[in-house]
């Protein structure tokens, strides 16, 4: 009789095994583990390279980094001025040498206040903590800042206000692809980088913005202030002071 138990138990066990499995809802979507890489902005990874690049670029004046490299001796002595016998003349072919000003009408009549673009109060106290240098606080309006760029800047501002710095950064880069020469986009991007703790890139972006900000003094002042902030965070207080000075000159 004992032998009966074995199959009976086996069958019972099997039936139990079949029945005891919950008929749970099994999702089609993979329940696999997340990819091992953690989310982080890779900007900092390049810091050594960046530092290297800066040291190589020593010919640039340390203070401004963006402009002004006036040669001593003003050229006259070193430039040969005698005509050469068989020299070909400079072609008058139509090289575009007209000075380019981004904004022919630098005095803005319509103040553009980034803070006022957004209804979220968090945005006004943006985590960058950049001091508003002028009571007007606004940047000069620019006729190029039209629909899509304004819309994306607004989105980015909301994302930044909500603490989503990566999202804000991504939206601003989207705006940059649409308007790569709009300094306000680069300015906002620099501020987001500051908030992300990447002050080296913040300074670089502000410097890039300055090259597009001719004739827009209040924006230039904001950019120099951003550079000052970034330099302070990098421990370069002398450079920060110089940048502050530039900011005042531009106002």
């Amino acid at each position: 009789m004992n032998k009966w138990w074995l199959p009976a138990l086996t069958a019972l066990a099997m039936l139990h095994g079949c029945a005891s499995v919950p008929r749970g809802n099994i999702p089609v979507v993979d329940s696999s583990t997340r990819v091992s890489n953690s989310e982080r902005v890779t900007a900092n990874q390049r810091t050594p390279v960046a530092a290297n690049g800066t040291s190589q670029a020593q010919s640039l004046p340390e203070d401004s980094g963006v402009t002004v490299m006036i040669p001593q001796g003003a050229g006259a002595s070193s430039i040969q001025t005698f005509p050469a016998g068989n020299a070909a003349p400079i072609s008058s072919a139509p090289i575009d040498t007209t000075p380019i000003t981004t904004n022919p009408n630098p005095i803005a009549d319509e103040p553009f206040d980034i803070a006022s673009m957004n209804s979220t109060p968090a945005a006004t106290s943006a985590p960058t903590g950049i001091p508003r240098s002028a009571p007007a606080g606004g940047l000069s309006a620019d006729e190029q800042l039209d629909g899509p760029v304004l819309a994306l800047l607004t989105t980015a501002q909301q994302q930044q206000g909500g603490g989503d710095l990566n999202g804000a950064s991504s939206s601003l880069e989207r705006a940059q692809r649409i308007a790569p020469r709009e300094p306000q986009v680069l300015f906002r991007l620099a501020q987001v980088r500051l908030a992300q703790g990447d002050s080296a890139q913040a300074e670089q972006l502000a410097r890039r913005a300055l090259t597009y900000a001719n004739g827009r003094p209040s924006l230039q002042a904001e950019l120099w202030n951003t550079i000052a902030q970034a330099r302070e965070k990098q421990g370069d207080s002398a450079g920060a002071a110089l940048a502050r000075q530039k900011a005042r000159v531009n106002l």
Partner: protein
Amino acid sequence: MTRSRNSRTAQKRSPGRSRVWLGWALKLSLVGLVLLAGFAIYLDAIVQEKFSGKRWTIPAKVYARPLELFVGQKLSKDDFLTELDALGYRRETAANGPGAASVNGNNVDLNTRGFQFYEGLEPAQFVRVRFSGDYVAGMTGANGGKLDVVRLEPLMIGGIYPKNLEDRILIKIDQVPPYLLETLVATEDRDFYSHFGVSPKGIARAIWVNTSSGAMRQGGSTLTQQLVKNFYLTSERSLTRKLTEAMMAVLLEMHYDKREILEAYLNEVFVGQDGQRAVHGFGLASQFFFSQPLQELKLHQIALLVGMVKGPSYYNPRRSPERALVRRNLVLDLLAEQGVASQEVVDAAKKMPLGVTKRGSLADSSFPAFLDLVKRQLRQDYRDEDLTEEGLRIFTSFDPILQMKAETAMSETFKRLAGRKGSDAVESAMVVTNPETGEVQALIGSRQSGFAGFNRAIDAVRPIGSLVKPAVYLSALEKPSKYTLTSWLQDEPFSVKGADGQVWRPQNYDRRAHGTIYLYQGLANSYNLSTAKLGLEVGVPNVLKTIGRLGVNVDWPAFPSMLLGAGGMSPMQVATMYQTIANGGFNTPMRGIRSVLTAEGEPLKRYPFQIQQSFDPGAIYLVQNAMQRVMREGTGRSVYSVLPSSLTLAGKTGTSNDSRDSWFSGFSQDLLAVVWLGRDDNGKTPFTGATGALQVWTSFMRKADPLPLDMPQPDNIVQAWIDPYSGQGSDSSCPGAVQMPYIRGSEPAAGAACGGEQQPADSVMDWVKGWMN
């Protein structure tokens, strides 16, 4: 399930010893029962493990850049429609439902599909785009309201496949289009909802149908059995396998409900082969055959896909369209027969063409060079398993429109130059980037654009010839106290003894000396003698340092021959170097990837825009000016026989010794392209930089129609009027006076005003005409 054959056979034995036999039989059957039960438990474990765990590994999907739409955007209607076609938009008379578009004159109406991007969801919406010329002139939404910016969903350009090369797009059962489930059940297993895994009725019907029609029209296995077969078993045909399959099917049905089983089936079923890659599931099949998401499929398309399940290779609609059509219509008839769809609906569907796209538009082989770049970048950050199994979504900067234009420019130019002896053996590579963002937009790694293999754009390191010269002139122009664009250079033969003791005697391409020239002319006309002399004055190590600051770290020895481009670079490295010049002296690492999302659409990683100022913008401005003169009056001037003179461009030709490498690298405001032509065996080609690579480049630029180069004038740049013959300061009122940019303080003293009437400067142009390529 637990029956044993032993018990039945035992009963036929003689009754005399039946008691003994019965006892034995009982014991034997019990043993059999135990064994079978054990086997069932084992099978049950297998069934559950695979079904409850991670069922599939999903290869990472790589997407092109999403097309952004906004008012004022430079985009031709034709390019826009090309993009829509690639995305599988249906052309309808009025755009109805996601993935539909209609064209009325300059207006294009479309219903976008919506997509989850890194920074948020782009909703599916109606958009009316109005074109004017090559620009987007207006954009309105469903209620006629103005839209600021809209993104289309990105084109999927490939995936990163594991070794088994299985690919699929997972779908959920509540996302499937109408008719799909009904058609599948009606065709493959009409008792699906009532059987318990195996269907005796179905088998009987199959036998009846097949014997009465005299052909294999129906199979007897249920959907559950088919799933079990695909999921757990090999394709071996044997009775034991068939029995195992039946047992597993029953076990599966015991644990999971019909919808779960159906959902698994929809994702598992094999529907075709794309080269090495196996296309599994209706989600991917829909993309593969129709370039459309499954949800958008109509009855005739569904019937085709369901019909193919029976024999994916036999009924392949691309290879055997007639056969596939017959099969599709047979499936449609079944639907009418079983009352799934009305006769009118079925008749309408039967009138439709097959509607499959020409080839798998998401084939891994479409853009191999760019995908190779993406994979290399990803492998630095992810493990292989992450890439092949996790279903990651990789968003790139790839621009399919520019890629197609680059490929067409390449093939057309080769066709045009086919007469040149030896041009057949010439290979090619091309890199297209946006210098303002540092993003790679198109990549060609081989003359046969769809051919995956040696990726010359990344791996062919070849002597860059005169492409190195801008670095020489930039090194000089960074010293404005010593060099300006109008400094005098001696283009005369000379020789130097190198560090290795060898005497180096550079020569001009035309074997002539050109005497005293302006500095910029050395670059514009690519003179070797004057450039080498200048480079030696500046110092070879300094020039190499400049190349490093331009973004390319080369390990070239500091030999004088490096000044004329004896050192090698890949086309990608050349693009990096020129990008820094194009981007005002700001170096940007080349990026092909923008961001990575998980399979669930959650942000995982971003590759942010990064820049590093490495040059004074003034010096860059001067080099750009000289490089513009390359195009206007120098070795690149043939471009303006094709391109409008209003399109300001800058660039440089490059030819290595004996024309082994033909290079051109140049840029507009928003587009940079590097072209290399040469032979894999490093043999001689019939092309110089100007007659080969530049021709491809010009053809590409004509198609791409970029924005003219327009670098803002830096603060430290002044424009001065000079006399073209003497290089001395002049005045705008003087005849023939030309304007040249100088770094402030280095300009010649202004000359006196000439007054009187201006004279035409015809003579100035005469010397230009003497120049040949």
